[in-house]
């Protein structure tokens, strides 16, 4: 029960931070962080894949509704949720754990960074491509994707370090 409440709190909290704060950020006209993806990345491993995709859809749609981009965040989030088990197998291959929440305490700092970076890169590529829906300015688009990925990864790692310290 407590676990569900914590999850709901994270869900709502991250969505709010994204909508009220981070959506307004556009660093150097390039980088916009999308921190809500942390919810999908840090949820425990054995979460049912379909349930996770449904949650990712809901979360993405919630952010979409506030950013006037129906379908964009939702699509990218579902994509990440779909590929997450594969990514986890790739970067946290230890099978001895029954179930765990991906994080630096379980996976170690660098494997987690790699896991987050790949997932975020996937998410942001999908997101920005869906948003632009053309390859016309592919150079600028790639730059945006890379800068935003960097910013999001930094934010995710900060949250992770703060949680880890506690």
């Amino acid at each position: 029960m407590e676990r569900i409440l914590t999850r709901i709190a994270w869900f709502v909290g991250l969505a709010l931070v994204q909508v009220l704060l981070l959506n307004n950020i556009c660093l150097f006209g390039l980088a916009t962080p999308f921190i809500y993806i942390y919810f999908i990345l840090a949820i425990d491993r054995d979460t049912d894949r379909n349930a996770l995709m449904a949650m990712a859809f809901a979360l993405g749609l919630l952010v979409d509704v506030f950013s006037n981009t129906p379908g964009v965040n939702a699509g990218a989030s579902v994509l990440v949720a779909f590929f997450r088990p594969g990514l986890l197998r790739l970067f946290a291959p230890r099978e001895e754990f029954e179930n765990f929440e991906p994080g630096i305490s379980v996976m170690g700092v660098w494997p987690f960074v790699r896991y987050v970076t790949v997932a975020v890169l996937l998410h942001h590529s999908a997101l920005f491509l869906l948003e632009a829906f053309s390859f016309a300015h592919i150079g600028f688009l790639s730059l945006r994707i890379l800068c935003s990925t960097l910013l999001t990864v930094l934010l995710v790692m900060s949250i992770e370090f703060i949680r880890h310290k506690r």
Partner: protein
Amino acid sequence: MNNLFQFLYKQLHWIVFILLETICFVLLFSYNNYQSSVYLSTANRMTARLLKGKHKVTTYLGLVEQNQALAEQNALLQQHIVELEAMVAAHHLDSLSAVEAVSRIHRAGYQVSPAQVIDKSINKVDNYLTLDRGTADGVAPDMGVMGVDGVVGIVYKCTEHYSLVMPLLNSNSSISCKVLGGDHFGYLRWQGGDPRYAMLHDLPRYSAVEPGDTIVTSGSSSFFPEGVMVGIAQEAYPSADGLYVTLKVQLSTQFANLEHAFVMRKMDAEELAALQELLKPKNKKR
């Protein structure tokens, strides 16, 4: 059949994935135009309410810029007032000579630009204000400075981006003033103490000033045009020799919470000449 279900169940995540992504794309395409996206957009009542709350906070954070914009607008309006007053004056002077009309315009020939008071003191004998405009913005020493409510002081020194103003609240400040509607000049000095009051010296005794009269600038110096609000007369004290009266004036400018100021730049000779050229044909017509 059983096998088929089992297969489907095994691949359920694919089905869910494709289903959800399809929904996303449908959304993406069907809500692409703004009008149909009312329900899934910021125009929705729930989201709008939340965003309104956010807007309240962000507008508060943006007050500095807002104030800046308003101050600039005020300066523009002030300038319009000065210009319009000059025009009105010119039209009222039918019976007077064109030369005098031009000299009225001449007096009103000020350009007003806004500035922020970024530092000030009011409790010393010689107080100064600092404005955030300097020579780069066209401010120069000996320009008049007024606030929203009336006269503030005179620009004393300038750097490139800042200027020091000698306000009325400085023992060296002396500004020529008169009673509104009267013709007798006196000079306004501050003798320290209460920043709300200053003394208007050397008014002739026969000028018949009464408490409650409005004190304005005389326009006899180039710092200010005629008629800028200075304050309200409070009490009159006869001087020792009985020839003059000294007036205690309640200053209209609230120096304690002064934020915005306007620098009055007197238009230079060429500008004035251009203005006079503009006026000549009009006066000839009459």
